């Protein structure tokens, strides 16, 4: 049982700069939680406070039922994988992995068994005698993970472990990390700025911004039901389109108006929720690119066709991204490659309003 509980923790630096502004988070045993957010949002600081590498200004961190605020890192029974791996350059791979066990005075045979097991799991058995310098980025990453695994700790902490790898290797190692967590389901806290990593790895994603938690939830929940404009824009790639709009009411039905010429009816099941915001001048319509597609031959409920002149076409292979402008704002859509999108030509598109989000821009909240 290794639960991590973060209660109202604050990290303030000299000059009253607050990096983390009193966050609460409960992490369950065996759970894989990813802290995600832009740089400077306080995610790494939070992780380092869990590790014991940063002092906590106020609040409490509990690991496995104990407050660890004043417990040094070595007594917290945690393992951490650093962004630049932090392998000891003067030690061989075996020595790097065995170091923590050697310090804990485990018998030599036990150390060897654990290192060999981890090396087999990570497919680095043939590298055990090498020094870190003789390893590639991906291999170093595996060794850093191996060093964490052999310890069999209560909690794994990952601090942007894949950001030093090239794009292809990053995808490969992402799968490796997921595989390792399936084999060794230790409670894991993983920090990244890459929302794709967060979505693919996490049981729960914690989106942070400006030192506070914007939203916590399962990846699909964050994707479909973001609570703030920040989360809506941060999760999903390409990012959600945001268009200034206003709500109009006519004969009991609501319409969301984007420009003089362009407006869509609001789905009936949302009318009650949005009615109170008619006349609000700071509304923004959020619609993901995947919900703006080419037109289809048959009508679907809450899907509406409209015409646009396409500015830019980006063929991606399995799909094509199209960009157009509404009231000076660039908007993107995802269309079928065979839909015949051509730059600077008009195209009939379809917006799926059943996945729309209406945001009050003055509060940043999704309505």
């Amino acid at each position: 049982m290794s639960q991590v509980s973060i209660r109202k923790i604050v990290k303030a630096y000299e000059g009253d700069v607050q990096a983390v502004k009193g966050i609460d988070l409960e992490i369950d045993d065996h759970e894989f939680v990813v802290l995600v957010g832009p740089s400077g949002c306080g995610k790494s600081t939070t992780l380092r406070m869990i590790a014991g590498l940063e002092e906590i200004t106020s609040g409490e961190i509990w690991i496995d039922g104990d407050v660890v605020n004043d417990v040094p890192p070595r007594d917290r029974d945690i393992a951490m994988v650093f962004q630049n791996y932090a392998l000891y350059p003067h030690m061989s791979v075996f020595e790097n992995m065995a170091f923590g066990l050697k310090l804990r005075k485990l018998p030599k045979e036990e150390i060897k068994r654990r290192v060999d097991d981890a090396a087999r799991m990570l497919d680095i058995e043939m590298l055990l005698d090498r020094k870190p310098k003789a390893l590639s980025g991906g291999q170093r990453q595996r060794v850093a993970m191996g060093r964490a695994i052999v310890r069999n700790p209560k909690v794994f902490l990952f601090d942007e472990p894949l950001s030093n790898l090239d794009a292809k290797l990053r995808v490969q190692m992402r799968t490796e990390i997921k595989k390792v967590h399936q084999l060794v389901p230790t409670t894991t806290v993983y920090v990244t700025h890459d929302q794709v990593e967060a979505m693919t790895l996490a049981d729960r994603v914690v989106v942070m911004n400006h030192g506070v938690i914007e939203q916590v939830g399962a990846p699909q929940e964050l994707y479909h039901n973001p609570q703030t404009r920040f989360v809506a824009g941060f999760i999903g790639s390409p990012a959600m389109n945001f268009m200034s709009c206003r709500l109009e009411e006519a004969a009991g039905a609501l319409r969301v108006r984007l420009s003089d010429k362009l407006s869509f009816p609001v789905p009936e099941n949302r009318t009650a929720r949005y009615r109170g915001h008619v006349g609000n001048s700071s509304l923004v319509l959020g619609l993901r690119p995947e919900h703006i597609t080419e037109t289809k031959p048959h009508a679907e409920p809450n899907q509406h066709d409209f015409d646009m002149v396409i500015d830019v076409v980006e063929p991606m292979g399995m799909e094509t991204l199209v960009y157009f402008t509404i009231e000076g704002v660039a908007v993107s859509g995802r269309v079928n490659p065979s839909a015949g999108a051509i730059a600077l030509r008009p195209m009939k598109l379809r917006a799926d309003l059943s996945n729309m989000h209406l945001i009050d821009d003055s509060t940043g909240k999704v309505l």
Partner: protein
Amino acid sequence: MADGSTMAIDAGTTTSPAPRRVGSLKKLARRRSTTALLLCAPLILLIVCLKVYPTFYAIFLSMLDRKMENFVGLNNFIFLLSRPSFQLVIFQSCFFAITAVVMKATLGFILAHLMHNIRGKNQRIWRGLLLVPWVIPLSLSTLTWWWLFDPSYSAFNWTLSWFGLDSIPFLGTTWNARIAVIVVNTWFGAPFFMIMYLAALKSVPEQLYEAAAIDGATAWQKLIYITLPMMRNIILITVLYSLIVTFADFDIVRILTNGGPQDSTHLFATYAFNVGIESGNIPRGASVSLFMFPILATLAFFVLRDVLKRSKEIST
């Protein structure tokens, strides 16, 4: 395109022999290695004049007789080794150099750690203050030390008298004098170690300490398993360099004790001066000064080979 045009120019120059010579001369002048050699030439010349030539001349001199007329081979060395006074010089030089280097390295290491843990502007102030002994001309500071050690008027003995203690002849007995020269050498040399070790400490990535802390290392274990191995190269190089310089020390002993009492604090350099210049036996003086050369050169070879191997291993 760029490759193509270069090739075309090359092809053009190969067709006529005369411009090619000019071209190759120009090329030679333009080569980076040529520029580097030209820039280094004054220094190389200086080293050849002041170091290489005197060394070979000293080797030549050490194989002559007192009149510098007849070649005597290694006789000067054999004679020196049989003399108790020279055996004492060997002992004193080794004792002096090894003890002083160990003390300088230890003190420098401790000071570097203290410095490293002082944050902000204060570190610069303390670093500057601690470098003072190294910056003051050695002969000048040794004179001050000589005054401090004086049996009648020194500050040390005056302080002792305050407590009703007898004055100590710091430079008057063999072991007191031996320790005194080591103290002065340590005082002078420790700042150099401190500054080198401080630079080495700063170059150890902070994340290695963090990783070690998470792996379960105590402060002592971090020192043993991270700091020392990461600093090993710089420790080896500074110790080697300091050993060479300390073995060749002249100023401190010459000013503080002049080799006394009873020749017990003579080092190779002061003894060589004594034999070669003051007693007028230049070939034998040259032999004394060359005595440590093969030993230190061998040591330097192995140490530098090890340093090179390790730096290749751990550099990322």
